[in-house]
């Protein structure tokens, strides 16, 4: 600063500081007076001289105002500089004072570091999860679903979507899409190696609805809408454009082939625009053939934008009215069906991640509170130690302001140290966080690089962003204010009273506050321990849960046999040959095909009609109520899988009753199905499912149940079991299939035998074994059909681990918080007990001199610790009951009020806390009365 005034001058300016306006007036008056003197000296009369001086000067009022405005800024700058200088002095002094007692200071800094690191980490995760969708005004976007009579959500059918679009008045825009994997070839000739991409067939309204402006070219809205317009167009996602097309700016107008169909590239979307997530390109949704547009063929995801002022519930009522009309006109398909409107951001993220983010924020808040209480405890102790000094100074007329500032400065210094530590710790945890977040789409924001300047600076180093740093600093400042407030108020009490009172009274009051702080710390720790216990138990149960299949070492590859190249008959023959060849591969236990690979997050739920009545009766279902049972056929929503016989062994599905699907199940006139026992239990509770019949939603021939397997949960492990149904590939030659291969168990063959199958047994867990198996399988596929596109390899056990990534991250983070909380709370118990022993040394000495046994003294100290601990545990258990509401929906087969968890947390914390007060108790018992009294 330029105002490097010397100490003398600063001192004087403190003594005599005229107001700014007074100063200006004085200065100008001096000038005018001097000028008047000058004129008077030249012979003018005094009055004339003064008037002439004023005339000469100009408008005095204007000059005063101008100087006042400028001088105000000058004074503010000076005050700021002085304030900063004093703050710096206070902080340096605080540093010296804190350094005098390194133990408690270290504890407070560690506490704040842990608390703020927890807050930063939880905040980063929550922000990644809850970040706004990459669409224009995401808050007004909704997702529309059809709801079956049983209350299960379904995608919309084409005619129902058309009804919604035509009759609903609540929406400013509405769009539909369906996704499918497709083979991409081109650009250029169609001969280049094909690639599997996720394609969205979307209405022309989808991209405008989401506010997506193409980066290059145009969307296909204009092209498709024009009469006779070209519908063979595609819009590329930014990621696909960069990866496959080398970010070619001239790409618009060239041709690519999707499943062999040539499409003109109409545009490229900007980076980050992904609707749905992971989509590679968008193509127009062309009105499908009759079979695809039946009202019971649920295939379209529908998004809409609410009109301004329309709420979700109003839109839901509007949509329900349209659904009711559809049910009246099309009872055979829409009877009992409704519709659901849900806010898109919540639907996109999923309720579990939203809850988990909230839980982490709440847990971090608890840890932060605990850390603040620990720091406050230290400041109280310091204020108490200096109470005599404070009171004496006050009694002698000294300022209390300085003392209060000192206390606040100590709190501020602690908080700043904690903030730096917390940011470093959280930054250091970035790599671990990213690893935990790998493969979790909701946490994609964590892996995203920060602002370009920053990420370039810190490439390879822990990354911190300004938002997180700001939050941590704000929390640290809040901590320091809250911590310093109590001791400061204490110091501000009228002084004479305090001096008259003996130090004992003050000490007692201070002791009560510190006890309350310790109880608060223990309560926070209890709550966190209970939550961590519940989450860990839930996670371990999930980890051990039986999904009904064996994911270990199973390789999964997707391939697509599209209609242009393969007729149904050719598809059957091809898969039969492939399954045979792969099954004979050395070291392969089983190989098979399934329409939906396990744990690929694909829902295929459809309503199956149970025990349908003969076809002729179909039209009269509504009118007549005779026939079987209650006169109505029931629907059951179930996941369906088309499988080849080898799939059962490859996935390790377990037969419970009847038989599995066999190569002989080829007769399309007599279709069969295998159900899992969840399906059987819901469809025909208590009855034998074998031989029962059901019908697929599109109609067709009735299926007969020939076997039952153990419950299968291959979509979402955390959700409860859902009915699953298996259909034979020979009868339903589906196009997109996933290959699953299980390597043989047992020790790998010794190298001497010459069989090259390094993937056998333990070999399948090694990278080399996996690569070898992947290569061998691809070789077999290429040998049968070199042109068949194959996706990247997935290992089901990896997929299963990713499936549990959320629960794992949530439970381990909360467990870490709880461990930190346990340590801090117990340190707090120890510190207060030790301080109390020091303070009560004279009293204890007197007691001992009067004949108290050592055991009595020990009990005195221990008893106080026990009372505090019990209070903390009781409060904390109550808090845990409240807190466990946040756990709802996150616990897997674990009740939120599990007594064992509460008891375990209480025992752990109580035991360690008692142990912590046992050391001061022993020291108290060891006090030598004579020595202590003499010192006093």
């Amino acid at each position: 600063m330029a105002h490097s005034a010397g100490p003398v001058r600063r001192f004087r300016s403190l003594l005599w500081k005229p107001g700014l306006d007074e100063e200006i007036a004085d200065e100008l008056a001096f000038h005018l007076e001097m000028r008047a003197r000058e004129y008077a000296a030249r012979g003018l009369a005094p009055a004339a001289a003064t008037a002439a001086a004023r005339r000469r000067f100009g408008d005095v009022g204007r000059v005063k105002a101008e100087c006042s405005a400028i001088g105000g800024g000058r004074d503010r700058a000076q005050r700021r500089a002085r304030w900063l200088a004093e703050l710096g002095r206070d902080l340096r002094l605080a540093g010296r004072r804190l350094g005098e007692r390194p133990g408690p200071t270290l504890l407070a800094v560690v506490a704040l570091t842990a608390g703020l690191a927890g807050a930063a980490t939880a905040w980063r995760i929550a922000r990644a999860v809850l970040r706004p969708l990459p669409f224009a005004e995401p808050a007004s976007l909704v997702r529309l679903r059809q709801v079956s009579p049983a209350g299960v959500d379904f995608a919309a059918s084409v005619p129902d979507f058309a009804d919604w679009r035509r009759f609903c008045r609540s929406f400013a825009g509405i769009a539909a899409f369906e996704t499918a994997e497709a083979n991409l070839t081109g650009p250029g000739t169609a001969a280049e190696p094909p690639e599997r991409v996720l394609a969205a067939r979307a209405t022309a309204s989808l991209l405008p609805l989401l506010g997506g402006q193409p980066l290059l070219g145009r969307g296909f809205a204009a092209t498709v809408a024009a009469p006779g317009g070209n519908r063979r167009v595609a819009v590329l996602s930014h990621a696909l454009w960069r990866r496959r097309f080398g970010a070619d700016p001239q790409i618009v107008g060239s041709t690519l082939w999707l499943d062999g169909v040539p499409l003109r590239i109409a545009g490229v979307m900007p980076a980050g625009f992904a609707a749905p997530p992971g989509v590679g390109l968008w193509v127009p949704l062309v009105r499908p053939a009759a079979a695809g547009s039946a009202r019971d063929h649920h295939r379209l995801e529908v998004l809409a934008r609410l009109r301004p002022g329309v709420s979700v519930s109003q839109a839901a009522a509007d949509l329900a009215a349209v659904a009711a009309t559809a049910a009246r006109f099309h009872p055979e398909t829409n009877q009992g069906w409704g519709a659901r409107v849900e806010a898109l951001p919540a639907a996109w993220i999923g309720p579990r991640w939203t809850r988990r983010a909230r839980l982490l924020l709440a847990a971090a808040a608890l840890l932060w509170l605990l850390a603040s209480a620990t720091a406050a405890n230290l400041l109280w102790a310091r204020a108490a130690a200096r109470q005599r000094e404070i009171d004496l100074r006050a009694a002698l007329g000294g300022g209390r302001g300085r003392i209060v500032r000192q206390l606040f400065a100590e709190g501020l210094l602690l908080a700043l140290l904690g903030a730096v530590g917390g940011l470093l710790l959280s930054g250091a945890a970035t790599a671990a966080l990213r690893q935990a977040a790998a493969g979790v789409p909701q946490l994609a924001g964590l892996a995203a690089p920060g602002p370009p300047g920053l990420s370039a600076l810190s490439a390879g180093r822990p990354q911190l962003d300004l938002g997180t740093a700001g939050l941590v600093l704000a929390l640290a400042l809040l901590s320091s204010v809250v911590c310093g407030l109590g001791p400061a108020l204490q110091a501000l009490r009228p002084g004479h009273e305090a001096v008259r009172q003996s130090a004992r009274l003050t000490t007692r009051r201070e002791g009560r506050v510190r006890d309350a702080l310790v109880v608060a710390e223990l309560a926070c720790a209890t709550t966190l321990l209970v939550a961590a216990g519940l989450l860990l138990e839930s996670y371990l149960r999930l980890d051990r849960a039986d999904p009904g299949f064996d994911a270990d070492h199973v390789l999964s590859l997707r391939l697509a046999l599209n209609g242009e190249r393969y007729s149904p008959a050719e598809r059957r023959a091809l898969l039969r040959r492939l399954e045979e060849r792969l099954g004979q591969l050395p070291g392969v236990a089983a190989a098979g095909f399934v329409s939906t690979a396990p744990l690929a997050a694909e829902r295929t739920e459809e309503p199956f009609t149970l025990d349908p009545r003969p076809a002729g009766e179909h039209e009269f279902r509504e009118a007549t109520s005779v026939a079987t049972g209650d006169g109505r056929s029931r629907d059951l929503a179930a996941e369906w899988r088309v499988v080849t016989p080898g799939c059962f062994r490859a996935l390790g599905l377990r037969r419970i009753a009847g038989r599995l699907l066999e190569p002989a199940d080829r007769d399309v006139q007599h279709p069969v199905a295998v159900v899992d026992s969840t399906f059987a239990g819901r469809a025909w509770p208590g009855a034998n499912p074998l031989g029962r019949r059901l019908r697929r939603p599109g109609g067709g021939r009735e299926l007969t149940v020939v076997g039952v397997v153990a419950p299968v949960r291959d979509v979402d492990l955390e959700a409860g079991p859902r009915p699953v149904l298996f259909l034979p590939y020979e009868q339903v030659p589906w196009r997109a299939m996933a290959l699953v291969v299980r390597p043989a168990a047992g020790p790998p063959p010794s190298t001497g035998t010459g069989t090259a199958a390094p993937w056998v047994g333990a070999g399948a867990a090694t990278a080399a074994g996996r690569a070898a198996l992947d290569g061998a399988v691809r070789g077999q596929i290429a040998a049968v059909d070199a042109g068949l596109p194959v996706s990247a390899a997935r290992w089901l056990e990896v997929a299963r681990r990713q499936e549990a990534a959320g629960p794992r991250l949530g439970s381990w983070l909360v467990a870490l918080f709880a461990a930190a909380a346990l340590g801090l709370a117990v340190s707090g118990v120890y510190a207060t007990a030790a301080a109390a022993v020091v303070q009560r040394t004279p009293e204890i000495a007197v007691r001992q001199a009067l004949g108290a046994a050592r055991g009595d003294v020990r009990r005195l100290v221990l008893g106080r610790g026990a009372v505090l601990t019990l209070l903390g545990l009781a409060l904390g258990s109550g808090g845990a009951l409240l807190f466990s509401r946040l756990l709802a929906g996150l616990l897997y087969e674990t009740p939120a009020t599990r007594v064992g968890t509460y008891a375990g947390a209480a025992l752990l914390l109580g035991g360690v806390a008692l142990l912590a007060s046992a050391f001061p108790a022993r020291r108290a018992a060891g006090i030598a009365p004579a020595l202590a009294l003499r010192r006093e």
Partner: protein
Amino acid sequence: MLAPNFEEANAKDMSNQPLPLLQGTLDVLILKTLSRGPRHGYAIARWLEEATEDALQIEEGSLYPALYRMERRGWIEAEWGISELNRKAKFYRLTPAGRSQLDAETAQWESFTAAVSKVLLPAT
């Protein structure tokens, strides 16, 4: 003198009409004045009048805002003291920052006038 004083108020001689001050020149003139030692505002005004022999049209009122502005920038600092006539007055003094500012502006002025002179008054 800084502006036509009352004695010359009726003078019509155009050749004696003072020149308008170039923008920002007042600051450097004040700095130059203060480089000879601390002075109060009136002394600065008088010194400028004498040094320029009233050739420049300096509005007396604009002197003080300029002083406050320069104090805020840290070029000068002020202190109350006792004037030669035993009266309380506010004295201004050059700070190190002000001194380097003066040097910089002087150098700039030199190169400026040299360049303009080269164009306007070519050596024939």
